């Protein structure tokens, strides 16, 4: 719940000074009307203290009940009622108190003549306080809602990113395990190596966070791990070619972005032809972007890569969008029988 502005020391001080000024002004005014300084001071202090207390009460009250748009008549009503009560209290306190002093009779007469003016001023003061309180609390509420909404959005985004990162193809996992199972009999050393690679790969998959960017060199190492496993599975059919500019190696990027793109290229390339397949990856720096191109062959006779992004690239597209709020960082290109996936990663300079 929004806290009352009077609960902070700074605002309370302003509030008190405000009423002190009012009391001073009223005292001067009353003196100019011919009242004795003590009488004028008593009148001002008592009446302003009452108004200040009422305003404090009103502001505090609105902390629990804030009139919504269509109920602003409530402000008018409560201001009028409070003004009435304040004036009655003033009369009840001041008249008995000041009727006994030297100019008592004149004061009592002055008080009853000043009723309407006092009412107007007090009503204005209370009304202003009421409106200020409404504005204050509305803004606080709005602020709170915004924070809550932002939190909810951030959580949803993180959850979705996590899910997208975790989308490990079960097909890959089970086939790798099957290859290991086959190797155990004839080449136990090779089997052990593959288990090691698979474990490293899975561990890398678990610990990465989207916010913790990694250098391209680390991404390439991780990719190498994945490719080694795939090469055991597909044997001589799969060759890869990685060309990366020296200057790019240290540049940072969100983790686990390359592997799914290459996995898609392998799946697309290897399942679309029966011949040996070369998957090429090229990375270079262009302005403020790291450009990564992954190329795989395909058979234009039998498969039609959809315009824009097709195949398994939707989750990459979604991840890039969630990370950078841009839909244009993933592109695909088709030349003859080569399908190229192009990712541009903005560099935070």
């Amino acid at each position, binding site marked *: 719940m929004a806290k009352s502005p009077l609960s902070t020391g700074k605002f309370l001080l302003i509030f008190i000074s405000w009423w002190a000024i009012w009391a001073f002004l009223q005292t001067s005014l009353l003196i100019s009307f011919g009242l004795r300084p003590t009488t004028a001071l008593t009148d001002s202090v008592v009446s302003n203290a009452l108004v200040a207390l009422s305003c404090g009460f009103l502001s505090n009250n609105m902390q629990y009940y804030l009139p919504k748009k269509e109920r602003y008549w409530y402000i008018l009503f409560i201001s009028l009622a409070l003004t009435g009560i304040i004036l009655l209290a003033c009369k009840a306190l001041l008249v008995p108190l000041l009727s006994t002093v030297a100019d008592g009779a004149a004061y009592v007469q002055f008080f009853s003549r000043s009723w309407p003016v006092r009412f107007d001023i007090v009503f204005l003061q209370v009304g202003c306080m009421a409106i200020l309180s409404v504005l204050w609390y509305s803004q606080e509420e709005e602020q709170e809602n915004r924070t809550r909404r932002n939190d909810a959005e951030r959580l949803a985004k993180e959850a979705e990113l996590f899910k997208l990162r975790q989308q490990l193809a079960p097909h890959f996992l089970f086939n790798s395990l099957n290859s290991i199972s086959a190797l155990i009999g004839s080449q136990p050393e090779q089997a052990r190596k593959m288990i090691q690679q698979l474990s490293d790969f899975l561990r890398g998959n678990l610990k990465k966070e989207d916010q913790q960017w990694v250098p391209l060199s680390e991404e390439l190492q991780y990719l190498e791990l994945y490719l080694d496993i795939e090469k055991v599975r597909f044997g001589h059919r799969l060759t890869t070619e990685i060309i990366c500019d020296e200057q790019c190696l240290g540049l940072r990027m969100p983790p686990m972005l390359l592997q799914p793109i290459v996995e898609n290229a392998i799946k697309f390339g290897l399942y679309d032809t*029966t011949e040996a397949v070369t998957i090429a990856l090229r990375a270079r720096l262009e302005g403020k972007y790291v450009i990564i191109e992954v190329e795989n062959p395909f058979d234009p006779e039998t498969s039609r890569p959809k315009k824009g992004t097709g195949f398994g690239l939707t989750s990459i597209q979604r991840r890039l969008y969630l990370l950078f709020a841009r839909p244009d960082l993933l592109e695909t290109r088709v030349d003859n029988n080569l399908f190229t996936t192009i990712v541009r990663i903005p560099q935070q300079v």
Partner: protein
Amino acid sequence: MSTNTTTPIKAIIIDDEPLARMIVKEYLATHKEITVLQECSDGFEGIKAIQQFHPDLIFLDSQMPKINGFEMLELVEQPPAVIFTTAFDEYAIKAFESHAVDYLLKPFSKERFDKAIRKWLDQHALRQNAGGQQAGAGEGSPTPAPGGEHDNDTTGALLETASLSPSQQQRIVVKTGGKIKIIPLEDIHYLEAADDYVKIHTHSGAFLKNRTMSFFERALDPTQFVRTHRSYILNVQQVTRIDPYEKDSHLCILQSGAQVPVSKAGYVKLKAVLGL
């Protein structure tokens, strides 16, 4: 000659991953009665080997390059008994379960493998006996035993279910003069009933496929392909014009210039799909 002499059982392994073929071969080492005649790394080699050796049993991976295991089976006349091997393929597994074909989920154990072999051997022995009694000396001849028809039925039903999987809804695989042609669905102009076959008209000619019209009506995306007539299904992307023809019937003109009859009921369906 004694009927007890066991003729060796001929088997073929079809899988694109060398290690996956290796483990099947290794597990088969204890089954002396089964001989592996060939290993194939894709569906094309598989079809060739099946035609050449007429195996009794094949071990078939469901996910393979170019044409998958199901598409390969579709192209084989009188497919042999199949034990499927697959790593992860929801649709395939659904198809296996509903048609009682044995399948092995990779990685599989020796015990599980042996169980599949035993089950098949029992069925095989039963069929051989039944075949032996009915056909007398028909044993060993390449003509299929009555049990073979049973295999065909199960496989046929299996293929119908498997072809509903998304990967297979993108294309149709046909055989044309000994060659295998993969037709992407966008290339299809229309389908026409032709006796026991369906004639698939595309921009590169017409191809016959051993399926029924109602099969295609079920398997193809109804927002793309509409059965406009008892004997015709057309690709709505290809429609350029619909002309009234005789009473209650229309004629659809395609981009290729072909004219496809539209019945009264077909016209209603076509209008709904085209949003008219």
